[in-house]
C-alpha cells in the first residue's frame, strides 16, 4: 500500500473528522510510527489554532480562574519539573507580550512571521518612496531652472526635427547662451543595447559633446545642457553613439535643428 492515502487522511484526522474504517486504518498507521503523518498533524494543529481564533471575542468568567487556583492549591504538590515547560512557554512569549501591549491581544508566534513580512514590505515601500522623492526633486529643480530661463528675454526655444533615422522624433532646446539650457525630446526609439543618444552643440567648426541620454518607455527624455564655450550655438544635433558617449560624432544623426 502506498503512503498517498494517508496524506489525505492526516488533515482529516487533525481536524477530528476521521471516522469508520479510515480512522482504524490511520490510527494503525500512526502506531507503526510515521514521522511524515505526525508532522502533518502538528502542522495542521498550528493552522487550526488560527481557525480557533475566528470565534467572536468573549471574556472567560472570573469564577473559573478562582476555582482552578483553589484546585491547584488543594492538589498534591506537583513534581519539581512538571510545570517547567510553562515557564518556557511564558518566557518565549515575553517578546510577543511586549508586542501585545502595542498591537493588542496576545500576539502568537504565528503572527510574528507576518509582522516580519509586513516590516520587510514597509521597508521596501519606504525605499521606493525615497527613490521616487529623489526623482521628483530632480524634476522640480529642472522645471524651476527652465522657468527661470524662460523669463529671460535672451532665452530662445530651438526646434529639433526628426531625421530619416528617426522620422517620428522631435525635440526642443530651451537655450540661453550664458546659462545653458534644457533639451526635451519625444518619439525617439529606445537606444539599442550598448548605445545611447548624444547631444552636440555646433558653434564653430566642430561639434562639441553636450551630454548623453537615453529615452524612457514612452520615447521621451530631458537633459540639462551646459553653456557652450566656443560661442553662440548655431545648430543642436543628436546622434546615436556607443553608450558613455564619444568626443566626436560617429553614428547616425537622429535629430537636428535647422541651421
Amino acid at each position, binding site marked *: 500500500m502506498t503512503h498517498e492515502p494517508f496524506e*489525505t487522511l492526516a*488533515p*482529516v484526522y487533525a*481536524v*477530528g*473528522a*476521521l*471516522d*469508520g474504517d*479510515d480512522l482504524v486504518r490511520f490510527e494503525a498507521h500512526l502506531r507503526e510510527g510515521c514521522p511524515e503523518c505526525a508532522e502533518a498533524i*502538528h*502542522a*495542521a*494543529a*498550528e*493552522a*487550526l*489554532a*488560527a*481557525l*480557533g*481564533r*475566528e*470565534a*467572536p*471575542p*468573549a*471574556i*472567560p*468568567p472570573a469564577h*473559573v*480562574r478562582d*476555582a*482552578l*487556583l483553589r484546585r*491547584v*492549591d488543594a492538589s498534591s*504538590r*506537583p*513534581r*519539581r*519539573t*512538571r*510545570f517547567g*515547560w*510553562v*515557564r*518556557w*512557554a*511564558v518566557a518565549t512569549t515575553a517578546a510577543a507580550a511586549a508586542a501585545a501591549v502595542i*498591537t*493588542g*491581544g*496576545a*500576539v*502568537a*508566534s*504565528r*503572527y510574528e512571521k*507576518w509582522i516580519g513580512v509586513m516590516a520587510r514590505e514597509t521597508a521596501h515601500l519606504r525605499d521606493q518612496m525615497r527613490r521616487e522623492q529623489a526623482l521628483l526633486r530632480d524634476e522640480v529643480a529642472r522645471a524651476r531652472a527652465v522657468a527661470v530661463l524662460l523669463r529671460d528675454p535672451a532665452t530662445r526655444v530651438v526646434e529639433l526635427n526628426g531625421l530619416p533615422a528617426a522620422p517620428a522624433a522631435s525635440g526642443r532646446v530651451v537655450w540661453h547662451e550664458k546659462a545653458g539650457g534644457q533639451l526635451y525630446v519625444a518619439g525617439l526609439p529606445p537606444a539599442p543595447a550598448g548605445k545611447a543618444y548624444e547631444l552636440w552643440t555646433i558653434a564653430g567648426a566642430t561639434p562639441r559633446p553636450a551630454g548623453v541620454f537615453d529615452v524612457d518607455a514612452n520615447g521621451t527624455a530631458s537633459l540639462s545642457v551646459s553653456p557652450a564655450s566656443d560661442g553662440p550655438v548655431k545648430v543642436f544635433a543628436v546622434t546615436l553613439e556607443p553608450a558613455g558617449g564619444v568626443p566626436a560624432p560617429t553614428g547616425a544623426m537622429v535629430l537636428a535643428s535647422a541651421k
Partner: protein
Amino acid sequence: MAEGDRDAFKQFYDRYARQVYPLILRIVRDASDAADVLQDVFWETWQSAASYDPGRGTAEAWIFTRARTRAIDRVRAVRRRGETFVAPVDEGLAAAAPDPGGDAAERMGDRDLVLGALSQLSDVQREVLALAYYGGLTQTEIAERLKQPLGTVKTRIRLGLTRLREVLERGP
C-alpha cells in the same frame, strides 16, 4: 518550586484562557457549559503539563487543540443524552456574548488577521472546515449533510487546511 509552578500556571491561564474561551463558547454555545469545559481544559494542562513537548508545536496550538477537543466532547455528550441539539455551526456566533471594553477592540485586530486568512479559502473549503472544527461533525456526517461524496469531503478538508497554512505562513 511548587509556588513557582502556581505562578507559571496563573500566567499561562491569563494568557490563554481568553484566547480559547471564545472558541469553547462558540462550540458548546452555552455559557455555563463553556465555563465547565474551560475549567476542565486548564485543569488537564495542570495535571499533564509534562506531556507537552515544545519541539512538536507551539503552546498555543496545543491548548487550542485541547480546548476544541474537550468542547466537541461536551457537544457530543449532550447530543447522545438526547438533549436539545441545534445545528452547531454559524448559529454559534449569536451565542457569544459581546465583549465590552477596549480589550475587545484590541483582540479584534488579531481576529481580523484570521478572518482575512479564512477569506482566502473557497466557500466549500471554509464550510467543511467549519462543520468539522466548530460543529464536531465527522467526515461521514459532513458528506451526508452536504450530500457530497466522502472523497470530496476529505479532499476539501485537505485543500482547505493546506490553503490556510499557506495564507498564515506567507500572508494572503
